[in-house]
């Protein structure tokens, strides 16, 4: 295992009286595909938002690529190579698909080069043919792909994917999984939140399980599927 690129150390996040994250720690090695699962409201999206700097953690720290990034603003975190997609899709709805992705590429280059990068990223997610459409006119699965392309355009080292397979059919899901694998082969590290267990089990080397803001398991898909607490909290009997 190579040196961890992302180290989450004792992250706690409170929203008023609600303990959304409770002392969560885990590490991600460069080149891994990690799954993050747990029931609704477990804190998965909150964890992603905290890692990229949208939320300040109540306590704990995040180290990324050897440096402490706790409390940095999201754009600084993105510049270091860590970004995420949004679960409910947060595109720039009035802009074209191309412009959405182009804005991501502007992080590292000027407008002209960014346009080329954006087209390449759209091509990668299979959406080059709708580059000129307005984001508002897309279907939900298309929007999720544009989100992926937009984050890829920032040239991340680690990409956090929040339920990009929601609302996809089987074929589309296979396509996204193939895409994630090929991105990993190109050197990207991926952490994916998904509720589709088959997808997550076949995609990930390792899975982290959250429940009520606490990490309750961390291991290979096989270990996770056998873990009694995970089965009780989330998986049900199907995987036991």
């Amino acid at each position, binding site marked *: 295992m190579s040196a961890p690129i992302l180290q989450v150390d004792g992250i706690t996040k409170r929203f008023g009286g609600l303990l959304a994250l409770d002392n969560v720690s885990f590490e991600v090695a460069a080149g891994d595909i990690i799954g993050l699962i747990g029931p609704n409201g477990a804190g998965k999206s909150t964890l992603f938002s905290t890692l*990229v*700097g*949208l939320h300040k953690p109540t306590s704990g720290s995040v180290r990324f690529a050897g440096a402490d990034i706790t409390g940095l*603003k*999201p*754009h600084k975190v*993105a*510049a270091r190579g860590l*970004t*995420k997609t*949004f679960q409910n899709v*947060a*595109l*720039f*709805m*009035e*802009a074209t698909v191309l*412009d959405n992705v*182009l*804005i*991501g590429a*502007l*992080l590292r280059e*000027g*407008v002209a080069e*960014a346009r080329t990068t954006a087209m390449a990223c759209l091509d990668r997610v299979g959406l080059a043919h709708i580059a000129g459409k307005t984001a508002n006119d897309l279907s939900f699965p298309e929007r999720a792909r544009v989100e992926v392309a*937009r*984050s890829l*355009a*920032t040239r991340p080292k680690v990409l956090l994917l929040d339920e990009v397979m929601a609302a996809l059919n089987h074929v589309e899901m296979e396509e996204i999984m193939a895409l994630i694998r090929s991105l990993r082969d190109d050197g990207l590290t991926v952490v994916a939140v998904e509720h589709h267990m088959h997808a997550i089990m076949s995609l990930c080397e390792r899975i982290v399980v959250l429940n009520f803001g606490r990490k309750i398991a961390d291991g290979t898909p096989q270990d996770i599927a056998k873990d009694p607490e995970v089965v009780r909290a989330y998986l049900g009997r199907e995987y036991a």
Partner: protein
Amino acid sequence: MKPWIWGAAALIAAVVVPSFLDPAGYPIRVLTLTLLFAALGQAWNIVGGLANQISLGHAAFFGIGAYTSTILLIHFNLSPWIGMLAGAALAALAAYLLSFPTMKLRGHYFALATLAFSEVLRVVASSWTSVTGGPAGLSVPYAADSLALLQFKSTTPYYYIILGALVLICVVFLVIQKSALGYRLRAVKENPDAAEVIGVDTTRVKITAAVISAALTALLGTLYAQFTYFFDPEAVFGIVAISVRAAIIAILGGAGTLAGPLIGAFVIVPLEEFANAALSSRAAGLSQLVFGLMLIAIILVEPRGLLVLVSNGIARLRKGRKG
């Protein structure tokens, strides 16, 4: 027709028109004011339209421009061309400092904070009589027709200078819109969280737009002072006279578009002038009421402004003819 053909045609018309008008007459005065307020609407449009930060305090920067150049002219005999740059620099600084407390504010709160800021400056201008002339205002000393001192008996030179300022501000607007800053402003306008997460420094983007907009607004304040020869705190720091007018002109025409403030100004300013001429003796404030109603109407019918309303109308006509 392509947009640039419209632009070229409008510019040629604007250059030619004064040769048909009496240089000391009323129509060219109204036209000059229209161009000035179109430029003001366009400067406002950089924050109000591109970033969707609805400022109701642009009078602050307009007034800073007017007072700075005029005070420098009165006390140091400094050319308003230089005073204009000093005013722009001061306004830019003011916008920069104002950005910090207003940064996190959205919608009405941002509007109210900017409004409060301009009101503070209006009160200062009314009270600091030794420098600003107080409520009585300032008169620009007239020596002789002089380009260096930016003063002329005839309206025509002002017309062309203000037309130049309008073109300059339109070009700045276009350049911003097509540049990285323009893309980032759109991102900030539509979804600030998403913008941050993909690497947009939303704070910096908003400050940059605010500073550019404020500096350009101050230039217009100086031109206004030179053109009208006399102004008081209400005229340049006034909420209705400047701040609301700038916002209405851009919103009525179509905020965030190049043509919006131009259309807005050409509807509002002449109407206002003629309404005032016709009504003011009998019904003070009636024209303001009419504008308020117009604004409510446009927001209810088509919040994207007259530009969209008209182009949709044309599209419908064309469809009807074909179908």
